[in-house]
């Protein structure tokens, strides 16, 4: 287990390094001026643009810039945003917890709902309910994330008036709330974007879990449990589900990249001020340092997520490391 963990840690570090390198060269080789990201900036003074290029080291050869960037990253310095004029580390530190909150809740909801749906499907495998739930989750999986978000927004915010449309807090009134009120307010704003992300992930988890459950229900130990006179529900929940959960754990690691990618769109639609939106805006504005910083953090999260999932899978079933 120890050697396996070290080997996987090495692979994760290499992945992060490759992500940083690839992001650096892709961002710099993409066409367009870093200082001229939006229409207003087209009127920027060429003298000033030149001065800014020098200030940010963009007038140096690409390999020199790359070397300087790696050296700065090693010292924890991610540079300054061209647009926001503030340290990238501070901007990411502000945005990352918000995306983590969103993605964390979406992950919980996707797994909770996915496992629940799969359990119902497996218990009635081959029935109309099974087919209907399978089709419904597939529909959610097939819908464009932003479109699903907009539909949920119209239904739950405009028509029913239950949940807020956008942002993280209610303007003005948030300041008048107590601590609990503020927590509830953030939670209300979080529900729709998290649900949107979760519904898209739901199908994959439900299909995976359903398959594992159906397999488990045909296993020897389940037949033995039935023979002992346990109810169908007890067999399903206490025996089959517990056994079938292990393979689904690995999905958590692979779901993380999907959730982070999905958060770019969801955060834009719902005005959620997270890292996904920050990255999207930085790409449009050619804000290299923010793009690279976000790439680094995303790479780290994905590598750590995969590492954690692999280690968990290995702990549950040591044969997986072979």
């Amino acid at each position, binding site marked *: 287990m120890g050697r396996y963990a070290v080997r996987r840690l090495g692979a994760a570090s290499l992945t992060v390094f490759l992500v940083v390198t690839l992001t650096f060269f892709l961002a710099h080789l993409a*066409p*367009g*001026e870093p200082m*001229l*990201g*939006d*229409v*207003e*900036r*087209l*009127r*920027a*003074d*060429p003298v*000033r643009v030149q*001065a*800014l290029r020098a200030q940010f080291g963009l007038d140096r050869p690409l390999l020199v810039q790359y070397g300087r960037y790696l050296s700065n990253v090693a010292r924890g310095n991610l540079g300054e945003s061209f*647009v*926001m*004029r*503030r340290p990238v580390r501070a901007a990411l530190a502000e*945005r990352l*917890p*918000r995306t*983590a*909150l969103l993605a*964390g809740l979406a992950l*919980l909801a996707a797994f*909770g709902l996915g496992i629940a749906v799969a359990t119902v499907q497996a218990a009635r495998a081959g029935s109309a309910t099974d087919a209907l739930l399978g089709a419904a989750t597939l529909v959610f999986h097939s819908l464009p994330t*932003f479109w699903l978000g*907009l539909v949920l*927004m119209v239904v739950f*915010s*405009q028509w029913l*008036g239950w949940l*807020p*449309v*956008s*942002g*993280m*807090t209610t*303007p*003005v*009134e*948030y*300041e008048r709330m107590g601590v609990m009120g*503020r*927590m509830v307010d*953030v*939670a209300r704003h979080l529900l729709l974007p998290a649900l949107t992300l979760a519904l898209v992930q739901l199908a994959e988890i439900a299909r995976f879990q359903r398959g594992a459950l159906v397999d488990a229900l045909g296993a020897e130990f389940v037949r033995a449990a039935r023979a002992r006179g346990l109810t169908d529900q007890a067999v399903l929940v206490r025996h089959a589900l517990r056994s079938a959960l292990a393979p689904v754990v690995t999905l958590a690691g692979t779901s993380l990249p999907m959730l982070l990618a999905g958060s770019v769109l969801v955060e*834009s*639609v*719902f*005005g959620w*001020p997270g890292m996904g*939106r*920050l990255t999207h*805006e930085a790409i*449009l504005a*050619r804000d290299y340092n923010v793009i690279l910083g976000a790439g680094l953090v995303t790479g780290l999260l994905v590598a750590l997520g995969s590492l954690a999932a692999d280690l968990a899978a290995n702990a549950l079933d040591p044969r997986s490391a072979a």
Partner: protein
Amino acid sequence: MPRSLAVPLLVLALVACRGRESPRAAAGAPSGTLVIAMPGDADVLLPPVATTQFAIHVADRLFPRLAELTLGLNTVDDSGFAPSLARSWTHRDSVTIAFQLDPRARWQDGTPVTAADVVYTFDVYRDSLTGSTVRINLTPIVSVTAEDSLTAVFRFARSYPEQLYDATYHMRIVPKHLLDTIPHERLASSSFATDPAVAMGPFRFVRWDKGTEITVEADTASFLGPPGLARIVWRIMPDVSASVTALLAGEADAVEVIPQRDEIERARRSPTLVLTPYASPFVAGIAFNMRRPLFQDRALRRAIAQAIDREAVVQSVFGPYAEVPVGPISRMVWIAQAPVRQLAFDTAAAGRALDSLGWRRGPGGVRQRGGRRLGFALLVPTTSRSRQEAAVLLQGQLARAGIELRIEPVEFARLDSRSRAGDFDAVFFSRTLDPSPANLSQFWHSNAIATGDNLGAYRSATFDSLFASAVAARGRGDALPRWQALLEWFNDDAPAIHIYSLRNNAAIHRRFQNVTVRPDSWLATVASWSVAPDQRLPRDR
């Protein structure tokens, strides 16, 4: 797993909620909260270094100009301006204007606003190290000096009618006593640029939660008088549909412009919203690259222009929410109100012209001359759905005239770099114009070829001389025919075909009163907006 994740999620929720300090004390008499859905965040809130319109909208509420343009946007005559920080001004001679500052004006820390602030502001804007986007507009001003604490004197390099406009429109006055120790090149990254705690009203800065919202509150002590609203909150909502849903759900009160036809219709059906139409400063069209031999042929350019039914394009893409511009300007600019001759849509005339130039119909209907097909590529930004739709319609119209239009969709930054480098046949450009017609020189004067703003490298001695004549005219009556002549020359010469100018619609909640919209700056009159007491929502109190 859920139980083990609950604690970290709770911690994350607390971390995500932090960073929002208590607001400064709210002012008394004004009431009502205007929540504006804004598609993007500001960059910085210090006017000389702010580059986005979003930042300018906020900064304008904090840092007044010397004088304000009135709703007619008359940039030529003094009657088009209202006092603001300057309570009066005098033209001492043909190249000197002296501004008398309002003696009641105070920065929000109690320091009087003086002519030294005006001088400092000019120095900051004019310094290339500051990087102000309006520096180029201030080049006619030779100097600004403080004659005494309340008199700022502007001297110009030459006599021209828009001196007052140039002296007052581009600069917002900033506090010298708080900024003069900061090197100009560091102003953008200074803490004041993101936390302008001391301004001079009629609103004061409260908070900027980056990526989420910006809040300002009424400054009841402002020398401009207390505003009608207690606060303005700009909520960052990047998605247009989400913004409209927020309006319909009552979560937002106003949006500057709804750019999509289907979303305008959604807002129009709401009983709680009022759509306020106003002329847009935006104009879009096709610029030909005059460096290409094909487009050096004036008769060919004119034939292409005559083969295009711009009205049909506008109707199809925008319906009633745009119009065909009268030339290289939008309806917002005052010279657009007069009739201007344009090349009419006339496929027969276009066909005859092309025939006479030797471009004959060949296989597939495409015209040819000397074995060369008549066609060109059009750069279209992938970020603009409207321009992509319009390009497809233009392709069909030109095909009927025997001209092959190849649409080349490119990412916006690529379009910008290629068009500035002259690496294109034709480009579907867009421009956001200033209220002054003199703005035309920035894009079409031969002097603008070197700066890269004259994308197609259009060079016309006639245009340049007509422009010189128009900007020198005294008063609107004298200037208007000269501008008309300029526009008509441009339209006849056809270095570009201007396809559409938007008719903007601001959507504003019905409970707001005294709402007027100045086309170049939609919130210019917001200090006089108010909410009737019986219409107030909880957030208005």
